[in-house]
């Protein structure tokens, strides 16, 4: 599986952008850039933005490919809300935020949310495009409600408010946070990379993919697991950021096509670029006041979702 020349060019452009943004992100802020601020505050925040960007964009690719669903995004299918609930649950039982323990619980609850959504949306061996989103709404609503109840009944609001979880922010991303998300994101990315060629064939539908030698149920289960790891690790530290996993893979597909190896690699880099850009804008645009990065993403992402929704509906000839 070789990369096309278009993919190399796009990849190079994205890497240049990423390094430029890293420099900007480390250099500029409300305070003067001394070594303590850069190393203790801006560096972990920058790395967290990159990791979460890689995670959410890759998770979007995995969800879209394995569910044959162009509208799938970790937040829209309820995986993110499941993770946020788990993180709050972890903190409520006394685990410190930005710890591996909280991340682990987030992974478990996020996996449960994923399983419920897929189970509800299954019909005759396939997973319905729209039902996934509807089930995602229900699971997200449940997750958000349970989370607010836990927060209001404990003293967790002081550490992280409900708004923090629902709009996402890198303001509390320290080195502990980076360390807590690194293992899951690393495993997720490696898993995704090996699943990529099989994900291509999933586009044929389950029966034809199986007939061509793909172990469909195993590939789907592993892809969904990888998506959960990639999403939950980030959400546990920075809260829910929607639409990144939707917008980035679609933009990359427009340029290099849908082949999953290069789509994954480029979406990962693209996700890092977009999220670091969004965080830099959120941080610097009205400095010293900071905007929630999830809201910045949603302002851009929601219109794109409308566009994709219309297109998906036309392709399917409408849905009841």
């Amino acid at each position, binding site marked *: 599986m070789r990369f096309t020349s278009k993919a190399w060019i796009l990849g190079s452009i994205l890497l240049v952008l990423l390094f430029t943004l890293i420099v900007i992100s480390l250099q500029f802020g409300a305070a003067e850039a001394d070594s303590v601020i850069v190393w203790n505050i801006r560096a972990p925040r920058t790395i967290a933005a990159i990791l979460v960007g890689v995670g959410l964009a890759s998770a979007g690719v995995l969800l879209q490919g394995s569910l044959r669903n162009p509208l799938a995004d970790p937040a829209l299918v309820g995986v993110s809300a499941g993770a946020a609930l788990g993180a709050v649950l972890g903190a409520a039982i006394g685990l410190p935020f930005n710890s591996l323990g909280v991340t682990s619980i987030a992974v478990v609850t996020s996996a449960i949310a994923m399983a419920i959504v897929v189970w509800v949306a299954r019909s005759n061996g396939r997973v319905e495009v729209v039902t996934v989103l509807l089930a995602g709404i229900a699971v997200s609503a449940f997750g958000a409600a349970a989370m607010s109840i836990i927060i209001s009944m404990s003293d967790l609001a002081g550490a992280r408010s409900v708004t923090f979880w629902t709009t996402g922010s890198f303001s509390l991303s320290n080195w502990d946070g980076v360390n807590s998300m690194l293992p899951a994101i690393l495993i997720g990315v490696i898993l995704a990379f090996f699943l990529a060629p099989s994900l291509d064939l999933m586009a*044929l539908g389950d029966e*034809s993919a199986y*007939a*061509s030698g*793909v172990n469909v149920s195993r590939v789907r289960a592993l892809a969904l697991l990888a998506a959960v790891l990639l999403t939950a690790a980030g959400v546990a530290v920075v809260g829910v950021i929607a639409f990144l996993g939707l917008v980035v893979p679609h933009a990359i597909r427009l340029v290099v*096509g849908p082949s999953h190896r290069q789509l994954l690699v480029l979406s990962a880099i693209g996700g890092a670029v977009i999220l670091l850009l969004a965080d830099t804008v959120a941080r610097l645009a009205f400095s010293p006041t900071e905007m929630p990065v999830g809201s910045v993403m949603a302002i851009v992402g929601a219109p794109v979702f409308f566009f994709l929704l219309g297109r998906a509906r036309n392709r399917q000839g409408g849905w009841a």
Partner: protein
Amino acid sequence: MILIAERCTVRGEGEQLRLDRVDISVGEGEIHAIIGPNGAGKSTLMGVLSGMLKVHSGAVTFQGSPLHDLGVRDLARARSILGQDLAVSFGFTVAEVVAWGRTPWRGSRDTAMDSQRIEHAIELTQIGGLRNRRINQLSGGERKRVHIARVIAQDTPLMFFDEPDSDLDLVGADQLDQMLINLRESGRTLVLSSHNLSWISGLATHVILMGEGKVIAAGPTREVMNQDHLSRAYKKNINVLWSIDSRGREIAMCSPN
């Protein structure tokens, strides 16, 4: 015999029999056509013979060993299937889709054998000019040819075609006919299903006539396709009139009255 099914039984929901103690044997290089009215069990039989459906009792053997013991990859090296649902999500190109046929044979990178098989399949189906087009921008007939190229590239001794002539126009159906003849001449064994009885009668060496989950008759085409058998399967009197088609083959005109 490349494929033997013995007393295969499949139950649907509520213990209803979808396939009732079916015996079939398929010899190497033959073309077997599964025909019969809707709901007769054609798709179920196709699923069982191709290893996609498990049997509740009975057994299928491929080249002497149990078909349902094969793993997904070995199964895909033994048989290929052209299904009816040929939609492909996302904008994959024709070249990419045809290359997927090599999946069960692939090591870590393209070998010379892979590219040779892919080129051969593209040539046989005459889709060289479509290579870089996105598959969901093609016409129904072109799309079918791309998928046929994909299953040819899979390079299996046994090939299944589930109603391959549905939604093809006159010229498309004729091209399909020629492709299947070529595949047989290259030594493949073909199993197909169709509702077009006159086409089947000219193409198939053998016919499996199904009715209500049972085999009404199976054997050489000329022996199976007669008024008595067809009338029993379709539960209506079917007149059969044999004539010669443009390729010089005997074909049966079947008309209910």
